[in-house]
Every structure is written in C-alpha cells, then in structure tokens.
C-alpha cells in the first residue's frame, strides 16, 4: 500500500466520522426538542366571546351560542327538532374564496352522536358556500341536537389553526396545513323558550 493511498483512506474515514457524528447530533437535538415540547406544552389559551382569534387562514370572532327549534333559514322543520347555534364573524385571510371553515372548530370534548354542523350566512338566511377574501361575513353554525343528548349549559369549542406552506413536504405543492389548536372558547348557551307552533 502506497503512502498516498493510506492518506486518502484516512481522509475518507474522517469524512465518514464527521458526517455520522453530525447526523447523530441532529437526531439527538430534534428528539430532545420534541421531548421538551411534549413535557412543557403550553396550554391552549381560553378566549372570550367577542375577541378575534387568528387561526392563520381565518380570523374568527365568536358572538354567542343559543338553542332553538328553528334553523337559521327561518323555516321550521316539519318534525320538531332542536338546534344548537353558534354565531360568529368570519374573515378569510387567504388569497382565494374558500369553504374550508367547516372543520375549523369543534365541540370540546367531542360528542359522538352529534353530526357535523351546517353553516349559514346570517344576512341571507341560507346555507353558506365559500367565504371570499376581504369580505367578512356574519355566520351561524347549527348542530342538530339529538334528543338523547342533554343540551349543554356552557359550550366549549376548540379552534384549530392552519399554516400556509409554499412547498409541502410531499409534493412541493402550495397549500394550507392543519396545526395545533390556537384557542378554547367557552360560550354560555342561551336557551330559547320552547314555543308551540303558530307562536
């Protein structure tokens, strides 16, 4: 073995060592950070009604919650039903019309036999479609409340958040991606008097 060959071998070994140690250090740092974040998780802030919540894609301001037998369309269903309605203002902060607000908040803790809410535009008394950027809207989410479930006195909602990625990790496409919840909202539920038909 010549002297030159031995030196290249040593150089290679050194390079391997540096790369290996660097990789190990990176993995250890990432692991430590994850563990630290998990053990020192910041509690999700509780936000009162009327305060705007920045979820990244949307700015949402809850106004209040109530129960009633008439959905926001104003037409009473043929069979008596109970609705839990949450009113809020919604501002689309993204660059395009979107109807992706439906999964932005949820009842906390989740109730299994309650179906996903329907969303209505308050000024139109009609089912909401996309909300346009720069045009804030007053909206109503209505859950059809099952008879077997007691109506809540206080409603806790957990509000999720989304961030915009110019390039996602999988395809390199641009889009909005779910992140951790940013707020818990506690709303007292106003109960509507049970009224008979024709009143």
């Amino acid at each position, binding site marked *: 073995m010549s002297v030159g060959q031995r030196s290249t071998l040593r150089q290679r070994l050194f390079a391997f060592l540096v790369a290996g140690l660097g990789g190990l250090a990176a993995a250890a740092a990432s692991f430590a950070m994850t563990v630290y974040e998990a053990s020192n998780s910041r509690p999700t802030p509780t936000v009162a009604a009327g305060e705007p919540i920045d979820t990244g894609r949307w700015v949402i301001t809850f106004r209040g919650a109530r129960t009633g037998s008439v959905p926001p369309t104003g037409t009473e269903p043929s069979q008596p039903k109970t609705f839990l309605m949450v009113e809020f203002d919604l501002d689309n902060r993204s*660059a*395009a*019309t979107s109807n992706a607000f439906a999964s932005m908040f949820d009842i906390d803790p989740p109730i299994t036999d309650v179906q996903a809410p329907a969303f209505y535009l308050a*000024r*139109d008394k*009609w089912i909401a*479609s*996309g909300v*346009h*950027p*720069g*045009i*804030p*809207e007053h909206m109503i989410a209505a859950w059809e409340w099952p008879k077997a479930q007691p109506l809540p006195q206080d409603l806790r909602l957990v509000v999720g958040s989304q961030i915009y990625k*110019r*390039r996602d990790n999988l*395809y*390199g*496409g*641009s889009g909005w991606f779910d992140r951790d919840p940013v707020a818990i909202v506690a709303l007292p539920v106003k109960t509507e008097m049970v009224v008979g038909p024709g009143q």
Partner: protein
Amino acid sequence: MRTGLKETGAIIFAAAILYAMQRTTPLYSNITSPVSIAGEQGKRTDARAFALAVGDVHLARTVRIERFGQTRTYTTSGVWVLVEAAAEAKRESLTLTSAEWLGPSGLRYSLSQRISTMPAMLPAERLEPGLPKPVLMAFEVPENELAGGTVLVAPSAFTPLGEEVRVAITELAVGDIPGAVTIRRSDGPMPWTLETE
C-alpha cells in the same frame, strides 16, 4: 495553502448554485397551472376546446331576481359583479364549471354560489360545438378589488395544464355603483334582461 483556498472557493460556489436552484425552482402549482390564453373585453377569445367573449360588466349593491312572478333579493357584503358573456364549445360538448374574478392585488374570487340557480349561469349551461350561448357570471367582490380585475374561465378548476381564458376587464364604472340590479327572464335573443336602478 493554495489547495485550501481552492477548496473553500469550490464549496462556496456549490452552495451558491444550490441556493440559486432552490430559489428559482418553480412551485408545484406553477408547473401544473393552467395554460392561459389572454383575451380582450368585447372580443372573442379562442381556446382549443372552447371560445369565450366577455361583454358588459355590471356592478350592484344588491341583485333582485324575478322568477315565476316572485322577486328574491340577494345581498352581499361586497359588491355584486355581473358579467354578461357568450361561450361556445369547439370540439366536443362541455360545461365551463370554473370562473374566477382575479383582483388587482392577486386575490381570487370564485363564482358566487348564491344565485347559481338562475338559468343561463355559466356553470349550469351545457355548451354545444357550433352554438354560441349567452351566459351570465356573478361574483361577490370587495370594492377595492374591482378596478383592474380579470375574469378567468376554465372547464374545470382542478385540471392540471388545462386551458384558461383570461379577460382583463377594462370597461367598468367603479365610481358609480348602482343600488340594485334586477334580472328577469326573457324570451328575446338574450335569455335575461338586466335593469339597473
């Protein structure tokens, strides 16, 4: 010493190239974005699969639609933009399901779903080859996104490398927005009439 300098130079050079490549890589949405065909307001624009001509664009605070003797009022928190146009399929029958108002700041406003039940609305009209059809588009746009807007029309919003006609809206009276526009069905050459108040 000299080799050390050379190596440092090579590393810096490589880093610069990698950085430049990273900065200039087109986004996935750019690579798959529709092929756009620019058109002018008032003139026919021909894509491969369809042709479109955008005529008058009307603004209004509220829209009233008269159907079957009833009048429904549609409000908006922005401004209603009603686009009168004609569209025609060229090779095969198709429906143009996607239309957007592109504001001057780059914000995109999809067709309003509120008055989509009105006949002659673009996404509801089946276009046949050789038969140009009058069509209406309705958008809800905030006032500051009106001047300098562009109408984008495509057969579908999700087809990568599909065709998209872009018509810059040059004739638009932004200063004087009427309170209400009434749309009525008509049996004349156009299937609707627009009446501004």
